[in-house]
């Protein structure tokens, strides 16, 4: 149907106007985001927080690491549908990956997995990737400091 939303992805020119339309996959992740929530302190091996505290999108991300791989991941996000959907997809991509694999996840991977996202919402996917990297750094720091879980 050519009257559906998501037209921007369907090849209409960028000038398709000020409004942002999301595709079905993005909508689905917005409605049913994966891995929402938070890990309790005992379970948390790494925590990341990104975003301006005063305004704009904000994201918190927790990881639990077992045998060098992400065993559990959870997020909370204050933000637009794009932020919620990209965070959700990011956690899905990262879940089960080794830390080394998880470090290599880019915002392009997230966007691709979602089948595209409106140009002006690209920064949302970056937010998730940065939260994940922050959580991984936190895990590395805790490990280096010896206060990680065994």
């Amino acid at each position, binding site marked *: 149907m050519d009257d559906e939303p998501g037209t921007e992805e369907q090849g209409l020119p960028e000038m398709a106007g*000020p409004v942002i339309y999301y595709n079905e996959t993005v909508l689905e992740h917005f409605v049913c985001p994966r891995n929402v929530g938070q890990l309790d302190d005992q379970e948390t091996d790494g925590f990341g927080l990104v975003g301006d505290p005063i305004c704009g999108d904000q994201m918190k991300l927790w990881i639990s690491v077992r045998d060098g791989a992400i065993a559990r991941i959870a997020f909370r996000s204050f933000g637009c549908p794009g932020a919620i959907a990209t965070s959700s997809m990011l956690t899905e991509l990262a879940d089960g990956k080794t830390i080394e694999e998880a470090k290599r996840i880019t915002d392009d991977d997230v966007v691709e997995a979602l089948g595209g996202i409106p140009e002006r919402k690209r920064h949302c996917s970056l937010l998730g990737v940065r939260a994940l990297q922050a959580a991984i750094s936190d895990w590395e720091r805790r490990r280096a400091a010896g206060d990680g879980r065994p």
Partner: protein
Amino acid sequence: MIYLDHNATTPLRPQALEAMLPYLRERWGNPSSPYRFGAEARSAVERARARIAEALGCQPAELVFCGSGTEADNLALRGAAQALRGRGNHIVTTAIEHHAVWHTCQALEREGFRVSYLPVRPDGVVDLDALTASLCPETILVSVMHANNETGVIQPVERIAALTRERGIVLHTDAVQSAGKLPLRLDRLGADLVAFSGHKLYGPKGAAALYARQGTPLAPLITGGDHERGLRAGTEHVAGIVGFAEAVALASAEVEAEAQRLGTMRDRLERQVVAAIPDAAVNGAAAPRVPNTSSLSFRGIDGESIVLGLDLRGICVSTGSACSTGDPEPSHVLLAMGVPARTAQGSIRVSLGRETRTDHVDATVQALADIVERLRGISSLGGEAA
């Protein structure tokens, strides 16, 4: 579909469409053509002008037809600024104007005018002391909107007119959101220039008007033929003008009853929202407002997500003015009222209209409560977050 975004646009009234159809079918002449078939179209345009003048209390010759409310605002601001250039270069407006006025004032700044953007009080009403203080001998033009598109807050245009009139300053008001919602008498409002738009009051898109009080200095924005007394050249959108007039006439006839009905529903909506949803606030509630508009803020979540959540349930509302949607910045209107950025980001606008019924309101509150709860469950800003 439950449509609660009447401040963005409204359905074309069937009577307005009926009035237009002859001009889209058999009476397609050019109003400037020198034969009877052209006179038929000319007569339609002039009867439309006379009807609007009658409904809104002005002279027909004081109305200039335009293509949009935005164009009417541009004609007012750029037209008056250019015509008055010789007298001074200072313009006064507010921090809560629609982009049509705001961005046009910014454009005039780039052309060398000095513009003061007045603050508003927390209730959303422009600060009259600040306005008085801003006027100086160089001030040629003041532009203060009549009703705000996001909050519905009504500005004291009559009182501002008293200030500008005694100083010989031209006053423009953007009445795009008040025309059709409040009883409007252009001769009594006091503004010299008043913009309003067809598609906001159940008329067609592509038709709007600028009222320019007789004698108000004004240069055209669009030059060419002699149309609209030289103030807006170009072949007239005849059918649109006819439908616009029909819509204005019908809206004027029913405005008081409809204002009553909408006000009651709007109050019901706000009462229910505040009762059903924790940490919800109504912006501008302390000020006089047009009866159909409600600006609601919800702590800890994002307005765009609320709008999408409602859309997925078949309910149409918006985050703010239609033409700034997608803008990641929080509403400049709410920020100007002192609403914190995070709260402003979690705001939506609900605007009721002719087809709105009580059960639409109730269903919307229910959906809103669900969505707000769900989004707060996701949010990193809730009390429960680490």
